């Protein structure tokens, strides 16, 4: 069975400092992995995705994530946090031939202090 674990329910950083949101996955297959962000009263927006090409994936707004198969991890990073990054972040896994079903982690709320 596939699953996703986000290791922190809440992360707080100061503006201008690095962001690290941790995600581990469990999968019997070669997964596709995604990070989505949700700002208040908005839909889920794709930040980036890994689909078995380059292991270091760059996304929007300066975010990137590295797929590490040996560690079954897909952590999200950003060198310098901005106030507008405050939101809920979801790590997501999917597999082929499952009708496009996405499996979500429980989410990490990122707070950014001035």
């Amino acid at each position: 069975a596939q699953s996703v674990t986000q290791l922190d329910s809440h992360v707080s950083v100061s503006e201008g400092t690095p962001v690290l949101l941790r995600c581990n996955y469990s999968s019997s297959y070669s997964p596709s992995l995604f990070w989505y962000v949700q700002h208040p009263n908005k839909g889920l927006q794709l930040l980036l995705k890994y689909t078995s090409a380059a292991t270091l994936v760059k996304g929007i707004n300066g975010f990137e994530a590295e797929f590490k198969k040996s560690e079954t991890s897909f952590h999200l990073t950003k060198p310098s946090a901005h106030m507008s990054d405050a939101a809920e972040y979801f790590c997501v896994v999917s597999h082929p031939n499952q009708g496009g079903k996405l499996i979500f982690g429980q989410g990490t709320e990122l707070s950014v202090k001035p």
Partner: protein
Amino acid sequence: EPEVTQTPSHQVTQMGQEVILRCVPISNHLYFYWYRQILGQKVEFLVSFYNNEISEKSEIFDDQFSVERPDGSNFTLKIRSTKLEDSAMYFCASSSRGREGQETQYFGPGTRLLVL
């Protein structure tokens, strides 16, 4: 930029009543999905839909639930007889492809359903 839209944004209903949640997917997309998030819990997959039939459904998606694409633009989720535990945020999503599991799903802002 094209967006997925959902109506209503909020719905309050009495237990046992039928509700229909509406979604307008991105116009050239062919795959459609519903997810839900009960307060404080994970976002959960409900159902995927392609070519006018269900591709995949979860255990949650029992006989009380149905989906339909009644015309060329809308995609609906019907709950026949709502229960208290159906209270959740319901998200609609669409994608241009779906079988490979790699395609980006574009999500709407959600409908918050409260069952009293």
